[in-house]
């Protein structure tokens, strides 16, 4: 992690540890250690009333199981239901990422190309929703998408014209998607804006001068140069959406649970900590492999260009 830098003085080395040490320690204590605990937990039996069963049998142990086991893993792989929920979560995360990207790109471009004095104000407006509580904002969507809302009435009125039966917007995968996109949009806008703002405008002039029309200028110059921003924005949206449980819980129906809800249930509902740990580990592995793939692809794409 920390590599020795050639020709570094002793003071500089100490300074580097003083600066880099605390965050490193923080990650060790609050990320590496919990992950290890989670791995250990996944190989235990659940306790009778939540928690974990003891490893060695106590004197008065009559029911339940104890010791080390891979039962939780077997359970995970024995039922296709869990794979389905994983798949559904990945689809939800992909759809959210894609919609965020499509919505955020023009916005980020608009901000990056507007006058400098307006840019900070526009960025402020993008992050302004963070000033109010996350749950309140999600509950607000309950009202907007609810059966008595103007939006619902309008949509059903339009559908009625074509003779289509009224629909409910709330408690559906659609409502979950809307909530997910709404919550994560700023996380896509900001990295894209940071990237696009750095683009050298003379490159677009050069492209135009050399015969590229507006579409070619975007596709051949702006888009490939923005790929690092696209990748970091996508990671910032995709990964949190995978683990999100609040939005599906509030806006989704009973059938719309995602991995996040499943994990939450294992710890707070069914109280099966080992199985919850297995689900968490699977999620972490999936996210890490996607992040790894994305990094590799982003390096590949930014180096090769797309031409």
């Amino acid at each position: 992690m920390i590599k020795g830098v050639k020709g570094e003085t002793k003071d500089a080395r100490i300074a580097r540890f003083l600066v880099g040490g605390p965050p490193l320690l923080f990650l060790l204590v609050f990320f590496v250690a919990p992950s290890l605990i989670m791995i250990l937990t996944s190989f235990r039996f659940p306790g009778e009333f939540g928690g974990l069963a003891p490893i060695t049998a106590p004197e008065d142990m009559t029911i339940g199981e104890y010791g080390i086991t891979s039962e939780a893993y077997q359970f995970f792989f024995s039922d296709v239901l869990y794979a389905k929920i994983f798949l559904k979560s990945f689809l939800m995360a992909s759809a959210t990422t894609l919609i965020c990207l499509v919505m955020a790109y023009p916005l980020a471009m608009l901000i990056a190309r507007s006058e400098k004095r307006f840019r900070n104000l526009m960025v402020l407006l993008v992050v302004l929703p963070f000033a109010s509580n996350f749950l309140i904002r999600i509950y607000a969507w309950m009202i907007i998408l609810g059966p008595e809302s103007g939006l619902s009435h309008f949509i059903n009125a339009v559908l009625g014209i074509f003779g289509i039966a009224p629909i409910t917007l709330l408690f559906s995968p659609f409502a979950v998607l809307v909530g997910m996109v709404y919550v994560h949009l700023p996380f896509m806008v900001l990295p894209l804006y940071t990237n696009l703002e750095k683009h050298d405008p003379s490159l677009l002039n050069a492209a135009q001068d050399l015969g590229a029309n507006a579409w070619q200028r975007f596709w051949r110059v702006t888009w490939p140069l923005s790929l690092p921003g696209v990748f970091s924005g996508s990671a910032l949206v995709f990964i949190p959406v995978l683990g999100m449980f609040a939005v599906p819980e509030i806006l989704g129906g009973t059938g719309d649970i995602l991995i996040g809800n499943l994990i939450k249930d294992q710890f707070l509902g069914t109280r099966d900590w080992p199985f919850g740990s297995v689900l968490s580990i699977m999620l972490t592995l999936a996210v890490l492999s996607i992040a790894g793939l994305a990094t590799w692809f982003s390096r590949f794409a930014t180096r090769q260009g797309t031409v």
Partner: protein
Amino acid sequence: MALLEIRNVTRRFSNYTAVDNVSISVKAGEFFTLLGPSGCGKTTLLRMIAGFDLPDSGQILLDGNDMVGTPPEKRPVHTVFQTYALFPHMTVADNIAFPLKMAGKATQEIKTRVGEALESVRLPSFGNRFPHELSGGQKQRVAFARGLVNRPRLLLLDEPLGALDAKLREEMQIELINLQKELGVTFVFVTHAQDEALALSHRIAVMNHGIVEQIDEPSRIYSFPRNRFVADFIGKISMMSAQVVEAAPSHLKLDVKELGEVTAVGKAGVKTGDTGVMAIRPEQVRISHLSDEPRLKNHFPGKVHDFLYVGDVTTYIVELSNGAYIEALLPNSAPGRAKFFEVGDQVGVSWRHDAGIFLND
């Protein structure tokens, strides 16, 4: 017919006129330079030729067709930008192929022409490199190749050598001249460096405050500047207040303040009684020990006030009896000596009767 015809072009911005009723015509195959200090309007004019800006009035004709309604991507005009503007995510070959791809050329033709272009800028093995792997001079060459590969009718060059160090700059100047000669493409070159303009161009338009002060061949611009701005901007020149006492077609007799009568080269439109300056280039001024020279026309005593040694030549600043200063340039033909005269030496300065020029106020 001229290839590029700029007719009475004016471009105003909110608080000033960047280009003021400029008319220029550039012949096919010419290396034409727009020269002037920053803010003189040369870049605005270039942007209008490329199509990135439009004139408020006037016409820009290419091959006789008015270009005003044509967007930059449709003009057969390419630009080499000051910052090169190479696409950082593309290889050198892809950069050079860009204009060919935009023009919809066939893959095989693109490949051949990119190869030829790399050959012509002497970078045959650099096709697979990325711009960030190149030196400044190499980037410059790639930018030239990219601008030239699709054989534009006109190549615009916006101070392309500005970012290079002096040595490399001289090399690139020679390459640029050869490239232009080889390919026969018409160049319109923008620069504020007068030495570069003199070295490269077939003709130069000297611009100042949005107007064209003079259009001429380099040697004529240098030797016969039309006015004080051109004289001062191009090269070094000494100027002294003068009044015309006799105006003949072949020569002028000038009364230079407190120096006496000086003969200068004749100039159309100058009348007896006109006031202005007598101007003389340092290399036209001869300098000698006072006693050496017989008294001739245009021969004046003075003393060495200061000198500037730059290796090949030394410039002596001579204070004349009237208190005016005149510069004299002497090549250092004696090895090991930085100067022929010491500060304070009494010297005589003189010049040919046709070396001095008169410039109206």
